Protein backbone atom coordinates (compact mmCIF):
# COMPACT_ATOMS: atom_id res chain seq x y z
CA UNK A 1 0.00 0.00 0.00
CA UNK A 2 1.60 3.21 -1.16
CA UNK A 3 0.94 6.41 -3.06
CA UNK A 4 2.47 6.64 -6.49
CA UNK A 5 2.39 9.56 -8.90
CA UNK A 6 1.73 7.75 -12.13
CA UNK A 7 2.07 9.00 -15.68
CA UNK A 8 -0.77 8.20 -18.03
CA UNK A 9 0.81 6.22 -20.84
CA UNK A 10 -2.24 5.68 -22.99
CA UNK A 11 -6.00 6.02 -23.04
CA UNK A 12 -8.32 3.98 -25.19
CA UNK A 13 -12.05 4.43 -25.59
CA UNK A 14 -13.45 0.92 -25.66
CA UNK A 15 -17.18 1.62 -25.49
CA UNK A 16 -19.60 4.49 -25.73
CA UNK A 17 -18.64 5.83 -22.32
CA UNK A 18 -16.03 3.22 -21.40
CA UNK A 19 -12.30 3.83 -21.26
CA UNK A 20 -9.17 1.87 -20.60
CA UNK A 21 -6.16 3.72 -19.23
CA UNK A 22 -2.60 2.55 -18.81
CA UNK A 23 -0.47 4.14 -16.10
CA UNK A 24 3.19 3.82 -15.30
CA UNK A 25 3.18 2.73 -11.65
CA UNK A 26 6.19 0.46 -11.18
CA UNK A 27 5.87 0.18 -7.41
CA UNK A 28 2.20 -0.70 -7.39
CA UNK A 29 2.63 -2.99 -10.41
CA UNK A 30 5.22 -5.06 -8.55
CA UNK A 31 3.06 -5.88 -5.57
CA UNK A 32 -0.47 -5.87 -6.99
CA UNK A 33 -2.64 -8.98 -6.95
CA UNK A 34 -5.75 -9.70 -9.02
CA UNK A 35 -8.92 -8.42 -7.41
CA UNK A 36 -7.17 -5.58 -5.65
CA UNK A 37 -8.04 -1.99 -6.44
CA UNK A 38 -6.54 1.47 -6.35
CA UNK A 39 -8.00 4.71 -5.07
CA UNK A 40 -7.38 7.36 -7.68
CA UNK A 41 -7.29 11.13 -7.17
CA UNK A 42 -8.92 12.36 -10.35
CA UNK A 43 -8.00 16.04 -10.00
CA UNK A 44 -5.29 18.18 -8.50
CA UNK A 45 -7.74 20.45 -6.74
CA UNK A 46 -9.91 19.56 -3.75
CA UNK A 47 -12.80 18.93 -6.13
CA UNK A 48 -14.06 16.27 -6.23
CA UNK A 49 -13.02 15.73 -2.65
CA UNK A 50 -12.67 11.97 -2.40
CA UNK A 51 -10.57 9.55 -4.39
CA UNK A 52 -12.36 7.13 -6.69
CA UNK A 53 -11.83 3.35 -6.37
CA UNK A 54 -11.13 1.22 -9.46
CA UNK A 55 -10.14 -2.43 -9.83
CA UNK A 56 -6.71 -3.14 -11.22
CA UNK A 57 -7.65 -4.53 -14.60
CA UNK A 58 -4.24 -5.75 -15.63
CA UNK A 59 -0.54 -5.37 -14.97
CA UNK A 60 2.11 -5.37 -17.64
CA UNK A 61 5.67 -4.81 -16.51
CA UNK A 62 5.74 -1.41 -14.84
CA UNK A 63 2.28 -0.49 -16.03
CA UNK A 64 -1.16 -1.00 -14.59
CA UNK A 65 -4.46 -0.82 -16.42
CA UNK A 66 -7.86 0.38 -15.34
CA UNK A 67 -11.17 0.12 -17.13
CA UNK A 68 -13.97 2.47 -16.19
CA UNK A 69 -17.15 4.04 -17.43
CA UNK A 70 -18.34 7.60 -17.07
CA UNK A 71 -20.63 7.47 -14.10
CA UNK A 72 -20.58 10.93 -12.55
CA UNK A 73 -18.33 13.93 -12.19
CA UNK A 74 -15.22 12.03 -11.02
CA UNK A 75 -15.10 9.54 -13.86
CA UNK A 76 -15.95 12.34 -16.29
CA UNK A 77 -12.82 14.19 -15.20
CA UNK A 78 -10.79 10.98 -15.36
CA UNK A 79 -11.94 10.35 -18.91
CA UNK A 80 -10.55 13.72 -19.96
CA UNK A 81 -6.99 12.96 -18.86
CA UNK A 82 -4.45 12.82 -21.65
CA UNK A 83 -1.23 10.98 -22.25
CA UNK A 84 1.48 12.48 -20.09
CA UNK A 85 -0.85 13.66 -17.31
CA UNK A 86 0.14 12.55 -13.86
CA UNK A 87 -2.35 10.83 -11.58
CA UNK A 88 -2.00 10.29 -7.85
CA UNK A 89 -2.76 6.63 -7.13
CA UNK A 90 -3.18 4.94 -3.76
CA UNK A 91 -2.82 1.18 -3.89
CA UNK A 92 -2.85 -1.69 -4.16
CA UNK A 93 -5.81 -1.92 -1.81
CA UNK A 94 -7.93 -4.76 -0.50
CA UNK A 95 -7.34 -8.48 -0.35
CA UNK A 96 -7.77 -9.61 -3.94
CA UNK A 97 -9.04 -12.97 -5.17
CA UNK A 98 -7.93 -16.03 -3.28
CA UNK A 99 -6.30 -18.34 -5.80
CA UNK A 100 -4.68 -20.65 -3.30
CA UNK A 101 -5.86 -24.19 -2.75
CA UNK A 102 -7.20 -26.81 -5.12
CA UNK A 103 -9.40 -26.15 -8.09
CA UNK A 104 -9.09 -27.37 -11.66
CA UNK A 105 -11.25 -24.87 -13.45
CA UNK A 106 -11.63 -21.16 -12.81
CA UNK A 107 -15.01 -19.80 -13.70
CA UNK A 108 -15.18 -16.05 -14.21
CA UNK A 109 -18.56 -14.38 -13.85
CA UNK A 110 -18.54 -10.74 -14.86
CA UNK A 111 -21.37 -8.27 -15.20
CA UNK A 112 -20.87 -4.95 -16.97
CA UNK A 113 -17.82 -3.13 -15.64
CA UNK A 114 -17.32 -6.16 -13.42
CA UNK A 115 -15.15 -7.51 -16.24
CA UNK A 116 -12.46 -5.09 -15.10
CA UNK A 117 -10.37 -7.33 -12.80
CA UNK A 118 -10.43 -10.49 -14.93
CA UNK A 119 -7.66 -9.86 -17.46
CA UNK A 120 -5.24 -9.61 -14.53
CA UNK A 121 -6.68 -12.67 -12.81
CA UNK A 122 -6.45 -14.66 -16.07
CA UNK A 123 -2.84 -13.66 -16.47
CA UNK A 124 -1.90 -14.73 -12.97
CA UNK A 125 -3.82 -18.01 -13.24
CA UNK A 126 -1.58 -18.79 -16.20
CA UNK A 127 -2.28 -22.21 -17.64
CA UNK A 128 -5.21 -23.06 -15.46
CA UNK A 129 -8.42 -23.85 -17.34
CA UNK A 130 -10.69 -20.80 -17.41
CA UNK A 131 -14.23 -20.40 -18.61
CA UNK A 132 -15.69 -16.91 -18.55
CA UNK A 133 -19.25 -15.69 -18.46
CA UNK A 134 -19.61 -12.09 -19.42
CA UNK A 135 -22.89 -10.26 -19.14
CA UNK A 136 -24.11 -6.80 -19.94
CA UNK A 137 -27.30 -4.92 -20.70
CA UNK A 138 -26.60 -4.94 -24.42
CA UNK A 139 -23.90 -5.87 -26.90
CA UNK A 140 -22.18 -2.48 -26.82
CA UNK A 141 -21.54 -2.83 -23.09
CA UNK A 142 -19.96 -6.27 -23.21
CA UNK A 143 -16.35 -6.10 -22.05
CA UNK A 144 -14.53 -9.27 -23.13
CA UNK A 145 -11.04 -8.07 -24.09
CA UNK A 146 -8.33 -10.27 -22.61
CA UNK A 147 -10.89 -12.52 -20.97
CA UNK A 148 -10.42 -16.21 -21.80
CA UNK A 149 -13.18 -18.33 -23.39
CA UNK A 150 -15.93 -15.79 -22.97
CA UNK A 151 -19.55 -16.91 -23.10
CA UNK A 152 -21.72 -13.85 -23.55
CA UNK A 153 -25.11 -13.00 -22.12
CA UNK A 154 -27.00 -9.79 -22.77
CA UNK A 155 -30.25 -8.68 -21.22
CA UNK A 156 -31.65 -7.70 -24.59
CA UNK A 157 -30.16 -10.59 -26.54
CA UNK A 158 -28.16 -8.33 -28.86
CA UNK A 159 -25.15 -10.58 -28.31
CA UNK A 160 -24.94 -14.21 -27.18
CA UNK A 161 -27.44 -15.66 -24.73
CA UNK A 162 -30.49 -13.53 -24.03
CA UNK A 163 -30.72 -13.39 -20.28
CA UNK A 164 -28.41 -13.02 -17.38
CA UNK A 165 -24.94 -14.30 -16.67
CA UNK A 166 -26.01 -16.49 -13.77
CA UNK A 167 -28.50 -18.45 -15.90
CA UNK A 168 -25.90 -18.87 -18.60
CA UNK A 169 -23.33 -20.03 -16.09
CA UNK A 170 -25.61 -22.48 -14.32
CA UNK A 171 -26.79 -23.96 -17.61
CA UNK A 172 -23.19 -24.43 -18.62
CA UNK A 173 -22.16 -26.09 -15.40
CA UNK A 174 -25.01 -28.54 -15.65
CA UNK A 175 -24.49 -29.23 -19.33
CA UNK A 176 -20.76 -29.80 -19.03
CA UNK A 177 -21.06 -31.43 -15.67
CA UNK A 178 -18.23 -29.23 -14.36
CA UNK A 179 -16.46 -30.27 -11.16
CA UNK A 180 -13.69 -28.91 -9.00
CA UNK A 181 -14.13 -25.36 -10.08
CA UNK A 182 -13.99 -22.09 -8.28
CA UNK A 183 -16.19 -19.19 -9.29
CA UNK A 184 -14.68 -15.68 -9.30
CA UNK A 185 -17.24 -13.00 -9.77
CA UNK A 186 -17.55 -9.27 -10.02
CA UNK A 187 -20.48 -7.17 -11.12
CA UNK A 188 -23.58 -5.29 -10.05
CA UNK A 189 -25.22 -6.21 -6.78
CA UNK A 190 -28.32 -7.97 -8.20
CA UNK A 191 -26.07 -10.26 -10.23
CA UNK A 192 -23.86 -11.01 -7.24
CA UNK A 193 -26.92 -11.70 -5.13
CA UNK A 194 -28.29 -14.19 -7.64
CA UNK A 195 -24.92 -15.85 -7.94
CA UNK A 196 -24.47 -15.96 -4.19
CA UNK A 197 -27.82 -17.65 -3.73
CA UNK A 198 -27.09 -20.11 -6.52
CA UNK A 199 -23.65 -21.04 -5.29
CA UNK A 200 -24.68 -21.37 -1.66
CA UNK A 201 -27.61 -23.60 -2.65
CA UNK A 202 -25.27 -25.78 -4.68
CA UNK A 203 -22.47 -25.54 -2.20
CA UNK A 204 -20.13 -24.17 -4.85
CA UNK A 205 -16.85 -22.44 -4.08
CA UNK A 206 -17.59 -18.85 -5.02
CA UNK A 207 -15.80 -15.55 -4.49
CA UNK A 208 -17.56 -12.29 -5.03
CA UNK A 209 -15.94 -8.89 -5.45
CA UNK A 210 -18.27 -6.23 -4.11
CA UNK A 211 -18.51 -2.47 -4.49
CA UNK A 212 -19.67 0.17 -2.09
CA UNK A 213 -19.16 3.83 -1.32
CA UNK A 214 -15.73 4.44 0.18
CA UNK A 215 -13.96 7.39 1.70
CA UNK A 216 -10.42 6.22 2.49
CA UNK A 217 -10.10 2.80 0.86
CA UNK A 218 -7.59 1.53 3.41
CA UNK A 219 -9.41 0.92 6.64
CA UNK A 220 -9.30 4.16 8.60
CA UNK A 221 -12.76 5.63 8.09
CA UNK A 222 -15.02 2.59 8.73
CA UNK A 223 -17.16 3.91 5.93
CA UNK A 224 -17.53 0.70 3.91
CA UNK A 225 -19.21 -1.93 6.07
CA UNK A 226 -20.73 -5.14 4.79
CA UNK A 227 -22.68 -7.40 7.10
CA UNK A 228 -21.06 -10.67 8.05
CA UNK A 229 -23.25 -13.74 7.54
CA UNK A 230 -22.32 -15.17 10.90
CA UNK A 231 -24.02 -12.32 12.75
CA UNK A 232 -20.72 -10.99 14.01
CA UNK A 233 -21.15 -7.38 12.91
CA UNK A 234 -19.53 -5.92 9.85
CA UNK A 235 -16.51 -6.46 7.63
CA UNK A 236 -14.85 -3.59 5.78
CA UNK A 237 -15.14 -3.85 2.01
CA UNK A 238 -11.93 -1.92 1.44
CA UNK A 239 -9.75 -3.91 3.82
CA UNK A 240 -11.38 -7.27 4.48
CA UNK A 241 -12.64 -7.27 0.86
CA UNK A 242 -13.47 -6.29 -1.79
CA UNK A 243 -13.41 -10.05 -2.43
CA UNK A 244 -15.40 -12.23 -0.07
CA UNK A 245 -16.39 -15.83 -0.04
CA UNK A 246 -20.05 -15.79 -1.08
CA UNK A 247 -20.94 -17.56 2.16
CA UNK A 248 -19.39 -14.95 4.40
CA UNK A 249 -21.32 -11.76 3.75
CA UNK A 250 -24.90 -10.54 3.35
CA UNK A 251 -25.46 -8.57 0.16
Amino acid at each position, binding site marked *: *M*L*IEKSVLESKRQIGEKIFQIKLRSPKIATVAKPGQFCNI*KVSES*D*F*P*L*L*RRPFSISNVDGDSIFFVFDIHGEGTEILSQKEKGNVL*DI*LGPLGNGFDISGDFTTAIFAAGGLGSAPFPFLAKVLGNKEIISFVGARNSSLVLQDDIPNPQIATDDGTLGYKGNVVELLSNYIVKHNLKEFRIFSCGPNPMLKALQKYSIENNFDCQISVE*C*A*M*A*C*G*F*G*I*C*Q*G*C*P*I*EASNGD*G*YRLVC*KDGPVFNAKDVKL
Partner: protein
Amino acid sequence: MNSIDLSTTIGSLKLKNPVLLASGTVGYGNEIAQLTDISKLGGIVTKSLSLKPRNGNPPQRIVETPSGMLNAIGLANVGVEEFVKEKIPFLKELDTAIICNIAASSIEEYVECVKILTCIETINAFEINVSCPNVKEGGLIFGNDLSSVARITEQVRAVTNKPIIIKLSPNVPNISEFASVVKNEGGDAVSAINTLVGSSFDIYTRKPKIKNITGGLSGPAIKPIAIAKVLEIKRNVDIPIIGIGGIMNWKDAAEFMIVGASAVQVGTANFINPNTGNEIVDGLIEFCDRQRIQKLTELIGSYKI
Protein backbone atom coordinates in the same frame (compact mmCIF):
# COMPACT_ATOMS: atom_id res chain seq x y z
CA MET B 1 15.17 26.38 9.54
CA ASN B 2 15.74 23.89 12.32
CA SER B 3 15.81 26.59 14.88
CA ILE B 4 12.10 27.22 14.59
CA ASP B 5 10.26 26.07 17.68
CA LEU B 6 7.09 24.23 16.67
CA SER B 7 6.14 22.97 20.10
CA THR B 8 2.84 23.87 21.67
CA THR B 9 0.95 22.98 24.82
CA ILE B 10 -2.63 22.03 25.54
CA GLY B 11 -2.96 22.54 29.25
CA SER B 12 -0.26 20.32 30.70
CA LEU B 13 0.04 18.29 27.49
CA LYS B 14 3.19 19.14 25.57
CA LEU B 15 3.17 18.53 21.83
CA LYS B 16 6.24 18.64 19.59
CA ASN B 17 4.14 20.40 17.02
CA PRO B 18 0.50 21.42 16.77
CA VAL B 19 -0.50 18.92 14.06
CA LEU B 20 -2.76 16.11 15.28
CA LEU B 21 -4.83 13.61 13.34
CA ALA B 22 -8.51 13.68 14.27
CA SER B 23 -10.53 10.96 15.90
CA GLY B 24 -12.30 8.63 13.51
CA THR B 25 -10.04 9.53 10.63
CA VAL B 26 -6.96 7.61 11.65
CA GLY B 27 -8.36 4.46 13.23
CA TYR B 28 -5.90 3.31 15.89
CA GLY B 29 -2.93 4.42 13.84
CA ASN B 30 -1.81 1.12 12.35
CA GLU B 31 -3.17 1.37 8.81
CA ILE B 32 -2.15 4.99 8.24
CA ALA B 33 1.33 4.26 9.59
CA GLN B 34 2.01 2.46 6.32
CA LEU B 35 1.42 5.67 4.42
CA THR B 36 2.85 8.39 6.61
CA ASP B 37 5.37 8.95 9.36
CA ILE B 38 3.28 9.28 12.49
CA SER B 39 6.28 10.13 14.67
CA LYS B 40 6.64 13.41 12.82
CA LEU B 41 3.22 14.53 14.03
CA GLY B 42 2.28 16.29 17.22
CA GLY B 43 -0.06 13.43 18.02
CA ILE B 44 -2.96 11.28 16.98
CA VAL B 45 -6.43 11.04 18.42
CA THR B 46 -7.77 7.51 18.40
CA LYS B 47 -11.23 6.51 17.12
CA SER B 48 -13.92 7.15 19.73
CA LEU B 49 -13.99 4.34 22.25
CA SER B 50 -16.98 3.17 24.20
CA LEU B 51 -16.93 0.81 27.15
CA LYS B 52 -18.19 -2.14 25.11
CA PRO B 53 -17.46 -2.76 21.44
CA ARG B 54 -19.91 -1.21 18.98
CA ASN B 55 -20.66 -2.54 15.52
CA GLY B 56 -21.62 0.86 14.22
CA ASN B 57 -24.42 1.74 11.83
CA PRO B 58 -25.57 -0.35 8.87
CA PRO B 59 -24.42 0.69 5.41
CA GLN B 60 -24.44 3.06 3.60
CA ARG B 61 -22.41 5.08 6.08
CA ILE B 62 -20.84 7.78 3.95
CA VAL B 63 -21.64 10.00 1.00
CA GLU B 64 -19.73 12.71 -0.75
CA THR B 65 -21.20 16.23 -0.82
CA PRO B 66 -19.91 19.44 -2.40
CA SER B 67 -16.45 19.95 -0.86
CA GLY B 68 -17.39 17.66 1.97
CA MET B 69 -18.74 14.34 3.07
CA LEU B 70 -21.39 13.03 5.40
CA ASN B 71 -20.63 10.13 7.67
CA ALA B 72 -22.73 8.12 10.04
CA ILE B 73 -20.27 5.52 11.18
CA GLY B 74 -22.09 5.21 14.48
CA LEU B 75 -18.99 4.98 16.61
CA ALA B 76 -17.96 1.53 15.41
CA ASN B 77 -15.12 0.63 17.79
CA VAL B 78 -13.44 -2.25 19.54
CA GLY B 79 -14.36 -1.23 23.09
CA VAL B 80 -12.07 -0.39 25.96
CA GLU B 81 -10.92 -3.92 26.74
CA GLU B 82 -9.77 -4.87 23.27
CA PHE B 83 -8.31 -1.40 22.79
CA VAL B 84 -6.02 -1.94 25.74
CA LYS B 85 -5.11 -5.44 24.65
CA GLU B 86 -4.83 -5.08 20.88
CA LYS B 87 -4.19 -1.44 20.09
CA ILE B 88 -2.11 -0.03 22.92
CA PRO B 89 0.95 -2.20 22.11
CA PHE B 90 1.19 -0.59 18.66
CA LEU B 91 0.47 2.92 19.95
CA LYS B 92 3.06 2.51 22.69
CA GLU B 93 5.86 2.34 20.13
CA LEU B 94 4.92 5.61 18.46
CA ASP B 95 6.99 8.66 19.21
CA THR B 96 4.03 11.00 19.32
CA ALA B 97 1.29 12.07 21.73
CA ILE B 98 -1.59 9.61 22.00
CA ILE B 99 -4.91 11.23 22.75
CA CYS B 100 -7.62 8.77 23.54
CA ASN B 101 -11.09 9.81 22.42
CA ILE B 102 -14.07 8.55 24.43
CA ALA B 103 -17.71 8.50 23.44
CA ALA B 104 -20.45 7.10 25.59
CA SER B 105 -24.20 6.86 25.98
CA SER B 106 -24.28 7.89 29.61
CA ILE B 107 -22.27 9.99 31.99
CA GLU B 108 -21.44 6.88 33.98
CA GLU B 109 -20.00 5.24 30.88
CA TYR B 110 -17.70 8.22 30.21
CA VAL B 111 -16.48 8.05 33.77
CA GLU B 112 -16.00 4.30 33.66
CA CYS B 113 -13.97 4.43 30.43
CA VAL B 114 -11.67 7.16 31.69
CA LYS B 115 -11.25 5.43 35.05
CA ILE B 116 -10.07 2.25 33.33
CA LEU B 117 -7.85 3.99 30.82
CA THR B 118 -6.24 6.64 33.00
CA CYS B 119 -3.67 4.16 34.28
CA ILE B 120 -2.50 3.32 30.74
CA GLU B 121 0.78 5.17 30.45
CA THR B 122 0.68 5.34 26.65
CA ILE B 123 -2.35 7.59 26.78
CA ASN B 124 -1.24 11.20 27.12
CA ALA B 125 -4.65 12.85 27.25
CA PHE B 126 -8.35 12.23 26.84
CA GLU B 127 -10.59 13.84 24.31
CA ILE B 128 -14.20 13.53 25.38
CA ASN B 129 -16.54 13.35 22.42
CA VAL B 130 -19.84 14.84 23.54
CA SER B 131 -20.79 15.77 20.02
CA CYS B 132 -21.21 12.69 17.84
CA PRO B 133 -24.25 13.33 15.66
CA ASN B 134 -24.65 9.69 14.66
CA VAL B 135 -25.82 7.80 17.71
CA LYS B 136 -29.23 7.72 19.34
CA GLU B 137 -28.07 7.86 22.91
CA GLY B 138 -25.51 10.35 24.10
CA GLY B 139 -24.04 12.30 21.24
CA LEU B 140 -25.79 15.57 20.62
CA ILE B 141 -28.22 15.09 23.48
CA PHE B 142 -25.15 15.81 25.59
CA GLY B 143 -23.23 18.04 23.23
CA ASN B 144 -25.99 20.57 22.65
CA ASP B 145 -26.84 20.83 26.33
CA LEU B 146 -24.80 23.07 28.61
CA SER B 147 -25.52 21.26 31.85
CA SER B 148 -24.71 17.83 30.42
CA VAL B 149 -21.37 19.09 29.18
CA ALA B 150 -20.74 20.60 32.60
CA ARG B 151 -21.54 17.38 34.41
CA ILE B 152 -19.50 15.21 32.07
CA THR B 153 -16.48 17.47 32.40
CA GLU B 154 -16.79 17.62 36.15
CA GLN B 155 -17.16 13.88 36.63
CA VAL B 156 -14.45 12.88 34.18
CA ARG B 157 -12.17 15.42 35.81
CA ALA B 158 -12.72 13.70 39.12
CA VAL B 159 -11.26 10.40 37.92
CA THR B 160 -8.13 11.41 36.01
CA ASN B 161 -5.17 13.73 36.33
CA LYS B 162 -4.42 13.53 32.63
CA PRO B 163 -5.37 16.45 30.43
CA ILE B 164 -9.04 16.47 29.48
CA ILE B 165 -10.12 17.94 26.18
CA ILE B 166 -13.83 18.28 25.52
CA LYS B 167 -14.80 18.00 21.86
CA LEU B 168 -17.59 20.45 21.24
CA SER B 169 -20.61 20.37 18.97
CA PRO B 170 -20.85 23.10 16.34
CA ASN B 171 -24.62 22.67 16.13
CA VAL B 172 -25.25 25.37 18.72
CA PRO B 173 -25.48 29.17 18.48
CA ASN B 174 -23.27 29.76 21.51
CA ILE B 175 -20.24 27.46 21.43
CA SER B 176 -18.23 29.79 23.65
CA GLU B 177 -20.66 29.20 26.51
CA PHE B 178 -19.87 25.51 26.24
CA ALA B 179 -16.16 26.29 26.31
CA SER B 180 -16.72 28.43 29.36
CA VAL B 181 -18.50 25.62 31.17
CA VAL B 182 -15.66 23.25 30.33
CA LYS B 183 -13.17 25.69 31.78
CA ASN B 184 -15.20 26.17 34.92
CA GLU B 185 -15.50 22.44 35.51
CA GLY B 186 -11.76 21.91 35.20
CA GLY B 187 -11.41 20.80 31.60
CA ASP B 188 -7.97 21.57 30.13
CA ALA B 189 -9.00 22.41 26.61
CA VAL B 190 -11.73 22.19 23.99
CA SER B 191 -11.68 20.75 20.50
CA ALA B 192 -13.75 22.59 17.91
CA ILE B 193 -15.40 21.45 15.85
CA ASN B 194 -17.00 18.08 15.44
CA THR B 195 -19.18 17.55 12.36
CA LEU B 196 -22.38 19.43 11.54
CA VAL B 197 -25.64 17.55 11.17
CA GLY B 198 -26.49 17.07 7.51
CA SER B 199 -28.41 14.82 5.20
CA SER B 200 -28.72 13.86 1.56
CA PHE B 201 -31.48 12.08 -0.34
CA ASP B 202 -31.64 10.15 -3.58
CA ILE B 203 -34.32 11.78 -5.69
CA TYR B 204 -35.18 8.58 -7.54
CA THR B 205 -35.56 6.19 -4.59
CA ARG B 206 -36.51 9.09 -2.27
CA LYS B 207 -34.44 7.39 0.38
CA PRO B 208 -31.67 8.94 2.47
CA LYS B 209 -28.28 8.25 0.95
CA ILE B 210 -27.01 7.21 4.33
CA LYS B 211 -29.01 4.64 6.20
CA ASN B 212 -28.89 6.59 9.47
CA ILE B 213 -30.80 9.39 7.62
CA THR B 214 -28.57 12.15 8.98
CA GLY B 215 -24.81 12.17 9.24
CA GLY B 216 -21.99 14.47 10.18
CA LEU B 217 -20.70 16.93 7.60
CA SER B 218 -16.92 17.31 7.42
CA GLY B 219 -14.33 18.55 4.95
CA PRO B 220 -13.45 21.91 3.38
CA ALA B 221 -17.13 22.87 3.13
CA ILE B 222 -17.27 23.41 6.91
CA LYS B 223 -13.99 25.26 7.33
CA PRO B 224 -15.52 28.77 7.42
CA ILE B 225 -17.94 27.63 10.12
CA ALA B 226 -15.14 26.05 12.14
CA ILE B 227 -13.01 29.19 11.85
CA ALA B 228 -15.91 31.28 13.16
CA LYS B 229 -16.47 28.89 16.09
CA VAL B 230 -12.80 28.86 17.10
CA LEU B 231 -12.68 32.64 16.90
CA GLU B 232 -15.85 32.92 18.99
CA ILE B 233 -14.31 30.78 21.72
CA LYS B 234 -10.99 32.61 21.59
CA ARG B 235 -12.64 36.00 21.97
CA ASN B 236 -14.74 34.93 24.92
CA VAL B 237 -13.01 32.25 26.96
CA ASP B 238 -9.44 31.79 28.10
CA ILE B 239 -8.95 28.09 27.38
CA PRO B 240 -6.68 26.27 24.91
CA ILE B 241 -8.48 25.37 21.70
CA ILE B 242 -7.75 22.58 19.25
CA GLY B 243 -9.00 23.73 15.86
CA ILE B 244 -10.68 21.18 13.57
CA GLY B 245 -12.73 21.36 10.40
CA GLY B 246 -11.80 21.12 6.76
CA ILE B 247 -8.05 21.44 7.19
CA MET B 248 -6.48 20.32 3.93
CA ASN B 249 -3.06 22.01 4.02
CA TRP B 250 -0.68 24.14 6.08
CA LYS B 251 -2.47 27.35 5.13
CA ASP B 252 -5.67 26.08 6.68
CA ALA B 253 -3.74 25.03 9.78
CA ALA B 254 -2.13 28.48 10.05
CA GLU B 255 -5.53 30.12 9.66
CA PHE B 256 -6.91 28.13 12.60
CA MET B 257 -3.91 29.09 14.74
CA ILE B 258 -4.28 32.75 13.84
CA VAL B 259 -7.90 32.76 15.01
CA GLY B 260 -6.92 31.10 18.27
CA ALA B 261 -6.12 27.40 17.98
CA SER B 262 -3.17 26.13 20.03
CA ALA B 263 -3.14 22.96 17.93
CA VAL B 264 -5.11 21.58 15.01
CA GLN B 265 -6.55 18.26 13.92
CA VAL B 266 -6.65 16.92 10.41
CA GLY B 267 -9.68 14.74 9.66
CA THR B 268 -11.23 14.07 6.27
CA ALA B 269 -8.00 15.07 4.50
CA ASN B 270 -6.39 11.86 5.76
CA PHE B 271 -8.72 9.85 3.55
CA ILE B 272 -7.52 11.63 0.45
CA ASN B 273 -3.89 12.22 1.31
CA PRO B 274 -2.81 10.26 4.38
CA ASN B 275 0.40 12.25 4.40
CA THR B 276 -1.42 15.57 4.91
CA GLY B 277 -0.31 15.90 8.53
CA ASN B 278 3.36 15.58 7.67
CA GLU B 279 3.02 18.01 4.79
CA ILE B 280 1.37 20.51 7.12
CA VAL B 281 4.31 20.27 9.52
CA ASP B 282 6.71 20.97 6.64
CA GLY B 283 4.56 23.77 5.34
CA LEU B 284 4.37 25.46 8.73
CA ILE B 285 8.14 25.29 9.10
CA GLU B 286 8.64 26.97 5.74
CA PHE B 287 5.98 29.55 6.54
CA CYS B 288 7.65 30.44 9.83
CA ASP B 289 10.95 30.64 8.05
CA ARG B 290 9.68 33.04 5.41
CA GLN B 291 7.78 35.11 7.94
CA ARG B 292 10.67 35.12 10.42
CA ILE B 293 8.54 33.51 13.09
CA GLN B 294 10.74 31.91 15.75
CA LYS B 295 8.11 30.19 17.81
CA LEU B 296 5.05 28.85 16.04
CA THR B 297 2.96 29.61 19.12
CA GLU B 298 3.31 33.29 18.20
CA LEU B 299 0.62 32.62 15.65
CA ILE B 300 -1.97 31.57 18.21
CA GLY B 301 -4.74 34.12 18.39
CA SER B 302 -2.62 36.67 16.53
CA TYR B 303 -5.54 37.83 14.40
CA LYS B 304 -5.87 41.53 13.72
CA ILE B 305 -9.36 42.82 13.81
